[in-house]
């Protein structure tokens, strides 16, 4: 008996030791078969995911090679200490997909959603399987911290329930402002900020003078449009860092062009990963559709990306780009240099903008404290994220020995709070209770705003 147990243990350990590039394709292959996808197609899909992984990690080291030494030079020259490299959400999702908990988290999230639908606790049918990684990431952090797999799954489940509920909550507003009939947006990275936006908007509405301010999205897009293109952000940031590092002309331009390249190529690599996930995603869609054929009174849960074209959201995201860079340099205790996630600020702010009824000035005011929180949290979480990355086979020397993190998704306050609560931090438990009470109060205070149909009746 003991021999069998030992054999099983050895097998699991061996499997985990394979690293993400080998393990994830195997997981995807098995998942695809479970959703009745033909073996030939499942194999192709699994291999594509593996290729995407190789691509992401390659660009990733390229970035570390360039930013690492520049960050060191900046430290010695200016005393600014920003050693943690911001990879952005994309590699973070890749790392999470490669973690042990991911396949279980996908199945768990599906079950959680089905149970909630069956008991009419939600209207959202979450078919957005890519963003299940957000829930899995919460679980992966807890699993790493506690070593307990079931606590990790519990954390995943809690994250899924909360986000699906918030998606229901903000659906009337996103449908109204973003032209998305019958759709809700259960994406953790933006949904978390919806209650904060509502509360902030409620407070700002009470401040005389401030509550009159407005800004024109078209004007902002013209002035700040350059921050809309990832390659331009990369280039400008490269020049800025090169200057701070005291590089010569050649050094500055080399860094700028490399960073522009990273920002331009990275999404294409992640895209390959996504391509490979399409068959599984379609399988989930069919699976959900079959169980809930009468989808008329349901919301279909999609990626927040579909909302980001709203002019006010884009304009706010553009304004927040230079603000974030400035904050990184002046916020005490921040150790992260925002790079890759700078092009995702529109995603971050989208639900705040919606909660402010598309008022850009208010959205920017509310976003700033949130961004400061994100910076501090992603700096604090960087050792943990680096550790998670090493367990899926990331070579730590790639970023010149620096810790890695992700400005927005590594700095997400909701996930970090879950992680702290599960790590047994008493203060975090108290904060969690306070937050829950505040969210409930916000719901009551802003009931009319989020229930337009109730007002009409």
């Amino acid at each position, binding site marked *: 008996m003991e021999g069998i147990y030992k054999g099983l243990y050895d097998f699991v350990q061996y499997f985990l030791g394979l690293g993400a590039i080998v393990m994830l394709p195997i997981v995807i292959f098995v998942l695809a078969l479970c959703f009745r996808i033909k073996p030939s197609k499942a194999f192709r899909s699994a291999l594509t995911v593996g290729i995407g992984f190789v691509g992401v990690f390659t660009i990733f080291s390229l970035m570390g090679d360039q930013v690492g030494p520049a960050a060191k030079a900046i430290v010695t020259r200016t005393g600014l200490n920003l050693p943690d490299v911001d990879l952005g959400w994309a590699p973070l999702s890749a790392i999470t997909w490669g973690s042990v908990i991911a396949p279980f988290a996908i199945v768990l999230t599906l079950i959680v959603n089905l149970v909630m639908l069956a008991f009419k606790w939600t209207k959202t049918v979450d078919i957005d399987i890519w963003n299940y990684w957000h829930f899995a990431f919460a679980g992966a952090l807890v699993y790493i911290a506690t070593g307990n797999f079931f606590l990790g799954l519990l954390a995943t489940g809690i994250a899924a329930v909360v986000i699906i509920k918030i998606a229901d909550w903000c659906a009337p507003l996103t449908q109204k402002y973003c032209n998305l009939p019958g759709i809700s947006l259960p994406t953790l990275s933006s949904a978390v900020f919806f209650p904060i936006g509502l509360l902030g908007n409620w407070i700002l509405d009470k401040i005389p003078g401030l509550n009159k301010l407005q800004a024109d999205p078209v004007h902002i*897009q013209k002035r700040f449009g350059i921050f809309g293109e990832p390659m331009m952000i990369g280039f400008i940031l490269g020049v800025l860092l090169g200057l701070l590092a005291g590089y010569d002309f050649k050094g500055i331009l080399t860094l700028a062009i490399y960073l522009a390249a990273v920002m331009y190529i990275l999404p294409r690599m992640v895209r390959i990963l996504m391509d490979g996930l*399409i068959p599984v995603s379609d399988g989930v869609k069919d699976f959900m559709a079959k169980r809930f054929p009468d989808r008329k009174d349901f919301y279909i849960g999609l*990626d927040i990306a579909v909302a980001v074209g709203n002019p006010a959201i884009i304009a706010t995201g553009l304004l927040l780009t230079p603000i974030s860079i400035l904050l990184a340099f002046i916020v005490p205790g921040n150790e992260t240099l925002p790079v890759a996630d700078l092009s995702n600020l529109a995603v971050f702010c989208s639900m705040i903008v919606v909660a402010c009824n598309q008022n850009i000035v208010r959205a920017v005011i509310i976003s700033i404290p949130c961004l400061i929180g994100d910076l501090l949290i992603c700096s604090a979480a960087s050792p943990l994220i680096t550790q998670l990355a090493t367990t899926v086979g990331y070579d730590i020397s790639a970023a010149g020995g620096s810790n890695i993190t992700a400005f927005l998704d590594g700095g997400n306050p909701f996930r970090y709070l879950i992680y702290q609560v599960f790590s047994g931090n008493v203060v975090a438990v108290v904060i969690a209770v306070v937050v829950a009470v505040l969210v409930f109060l916000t719901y009551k205070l802003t009931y009319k705003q989020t229930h337009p149909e109730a007002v009409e009746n």
Partner: protein
Amino acid sequence: MSKKKRILFVCATGIATSTVVEEKVCNYLRSQGIDFEADQRNVGSVPSIGNDFDLIVATTQIPYEVNAPVISGLSILTGLGADETLQKIKDILAK
């Protein structure tokens, strides 16, 4: 011989939802024997390159003025009304 038509697929980051739509649209157009080129970007890049394309398929609003017709790819994501959208795309390219 007419020039190859160019389609731009757009979403918030140019990564996730536009990939799904691009895959579906490209498979459909190939099955219909239509010759085309495709590229994929984030919505913020549309002002600088949008006018190089004959058609834009977006999963989000395009808050800019562009010469090319813009078609919403949302129905392809949700599956409701996807066939009509594919037909519309084909009609535009056939012009």
